[in-house]
């Protein structure tokens, strides 16, 4: 990696290169990549000259590499703007050198505790990162009590809040667990006017009064949600506007409204961002489509909150399909796979008639099979195919639509095989 070598020679290289680049940085547990891609789409629609990093390269070395790749030999940046996804643990050190104009924090959920440690630890990493850039504008998720608490320390940064109002009536997943049931300030139990998913929603602390901030940008009404896209009403400081998001699932409403918020913060006309969202396609395993079997969609899953959201989406699909779960336990996935027991696979129980077949794959396929069995799904409908090649061979024989939920490294492996099988060029590269 050129970034790693360059950093050895010049440890503050990123801060030198980033000086004249206007950057939007996106961090948080879930939705970083999708949200960054949405912001990119708005940049592209606005005709800005920009570059961006990819999810696998969101640590200091990867971010530096991206800047090195986009500068001339004399160290002058070729582009004026950047959209940089930043790992939430790396935010502490990256933000100070990156000096972003805008920072988006999507949310905070428990995620790979073997790697990140406790959730409050991640929160303080992000807080420290923000402290190093007091002039950056923040776009914060008002519905996440952990994210919203970033504003509680008298940060000088201007803040734009975004969220989903209770009036939207987003169907909440009845979650068995919350990553933030008790007040981050005084430890009393939160009360909720409504939940959107996991611990997100209209929270307030009955004891100390800490509560969901009033968002500047909010989804106020859901007009339509199907398995391909959503149509909503968005409240903005300049009034209400309809918004079509060319990506399904409730959690993508958050990514969309966050991107509108970020576009505003960096100075892109709202109309332009809204048009971009209507055409948006994400790719790289995030609701990405492939011409395999009767149409295949891949939904990356990494942690219980994201996985339960994907399951909520799948449980609402009104036709027969095949479900594939690929579970790896390598470094980037988290070596502890116990989180699959925190995700609500039980949501699939009432739908099990519609799911004609299950495939489990990956290094920990046997564990995944067990999880499905204990969620009450019929074991005889489950096929184990450990390798991505054999799995793809099997799927190629199917005629029904296929939904694949892979963990990160399982997604990388399987995606390569499927893209090759479909004869498609790797558009991402």
């Amino acid at each position, binding site marked *: 990696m050129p970034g790693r070598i360059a950093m050895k020679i010049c440890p503050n290289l990123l801060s030198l290169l980033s000086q004249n680049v206007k950057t939007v940085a996106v961090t948080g547990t879930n939705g970083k990549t999708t949200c960054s891609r949405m912001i990119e789409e708005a940049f592209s629609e606005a005709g800005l000259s920009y570059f961006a990093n990819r999810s696998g390269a969101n640590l200091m070395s990867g971010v530096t590499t991206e800047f090195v790749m986009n500068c001339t030999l004399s160290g002058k940046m070729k582009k004026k703007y950047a959209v940089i996804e930043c790992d939430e643990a790396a935010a502490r050190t990256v933000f100070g050198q990156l000096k972003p104009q805008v920072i988006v924090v999507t949310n905070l959920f*428990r995620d790979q505790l073997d790697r990140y440690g406790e959730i409050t630890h991640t929160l303080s990493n992000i807080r420290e990162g923000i402290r190093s850039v007091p002039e950056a504008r923040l776009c914060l998720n008002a519905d996440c009590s952990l994210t919203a608490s970033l504003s509680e320390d008298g940060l000088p940064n201007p803040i734009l809040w975004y969220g989903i109002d209770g009036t939207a009536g987003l169907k909440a997943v009845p979650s068995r667990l*919350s990553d933030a049931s008790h007040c981050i300030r005084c430890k009393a139990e939160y009360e909720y006017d409504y939940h959107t998913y996991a611990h997100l929603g209209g929270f307030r602390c009955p004891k100390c009064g800490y509560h969901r901030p009033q968002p500047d940008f909010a989804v106020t009404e859901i007009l339509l949600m199907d398995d391909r896209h959503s149509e909503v009403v968005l409240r903005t400081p300049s009034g209400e506007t309809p918004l079509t998001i060319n990506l399904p699932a409730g959690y993508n409403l958050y990514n969309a409204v966050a991107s509108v918020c970020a576009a505003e913060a960096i100075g892109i006309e709202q109309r332009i961002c809204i048009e971009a969202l209507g055409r948006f396609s994400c790719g790289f395993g995030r609701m990405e489509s492939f011409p395999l079997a009767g149409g295949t969609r891949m939904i990356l899953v990494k942690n219980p909150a994201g996985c339960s959201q994907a399951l909520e989406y799948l449980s609402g699909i009104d036709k027969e399909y095949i479900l594939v779960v690929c579970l790896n336990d390598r470094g980037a996935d988290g070596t*502890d*796979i116990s989180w699959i*027991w925190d995700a609500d696979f039980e949501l699939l129980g009432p739908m099990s008639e519609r799911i004609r077949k299950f495939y489990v794959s990956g290094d920990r396929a046997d564990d995944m099979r067990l999880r499905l069995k*204990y969620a009450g799904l019929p074991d005889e409908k489950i096929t184990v195919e450990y390798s991505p090649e054999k799995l793809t061979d099997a799927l190629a024989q199917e005629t029904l639509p296929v939904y694949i939920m892979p963990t990160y490294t399982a997604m990388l492996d399987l995606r390569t095989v499927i893209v090759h099988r479909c004869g498609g060029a790797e558009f991402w590269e």
Partner: protein
Amino acid sequence: MELKICHLYPDVLNLYGDGGNIICMQQRLKWRGIQSEVSRVMIGDTLRLSDCDLLFIGGGQDFEQEVLLPDLQSGKDREIIAAIEDGLTVLTICGGYQMLGQYYETYDGVRCDFIGALDLYTVGSKQRMIGNTVCHCTEECGGSTIVGFENHSGKTRLGPGVKPLAHVQVGFGNNGEDKTEGAHYRNVFGSYSHGPLLPKNPAFCDLLLLTALQRRYGDATLEPLDDLAERKAHDAMVQRLTGQR
């Protein structure tokens, strides 16, 4: 037959899939035609263990454990101690396991008193003990091999009043030094194994269920289940970690 399970602090002690132990117990009872009922006892709720057959306490993050200590010490502690002495079947994991002990001393020497139901104590260490584990239960605890995943920085030392649940083949166990894992006292089984513990270790799960049923009904038996999927997942980890089948 039916079994009453009490899940203590399910909303706060809910780390690393520990709730999967409840799912596992309930399903293995259901597949045998045995009903079960889970009562979820939260902070502020009254804990009554007199009509409970099995108590489960999972692990939590530090922030969450701080939230509940005052609640635990305002009466629930005495209820738990009395029930344990009376032979209640208890499964408790990681943070919950530590809390049944005498105390926790942080790495920099601050001591936090726990409920003292078990003769053990825990001292914080600098390094976290993280990874997959393979342990062998003592004969008293059924003698089965258990696979799990541990993630703790506390080192637990057992006093003479308790025995280890298992001996470590791969991993750290209680403290990474004496090769013990977990603790066993009367019908209490404490362990550092997440994973969650029970689904991949059906023999150990059935031991708990049988212990609880026998206490309630005197003479109870459990019919065997088709554990092919469980055995495969169990054996795959044993083989990966030890190279043995």
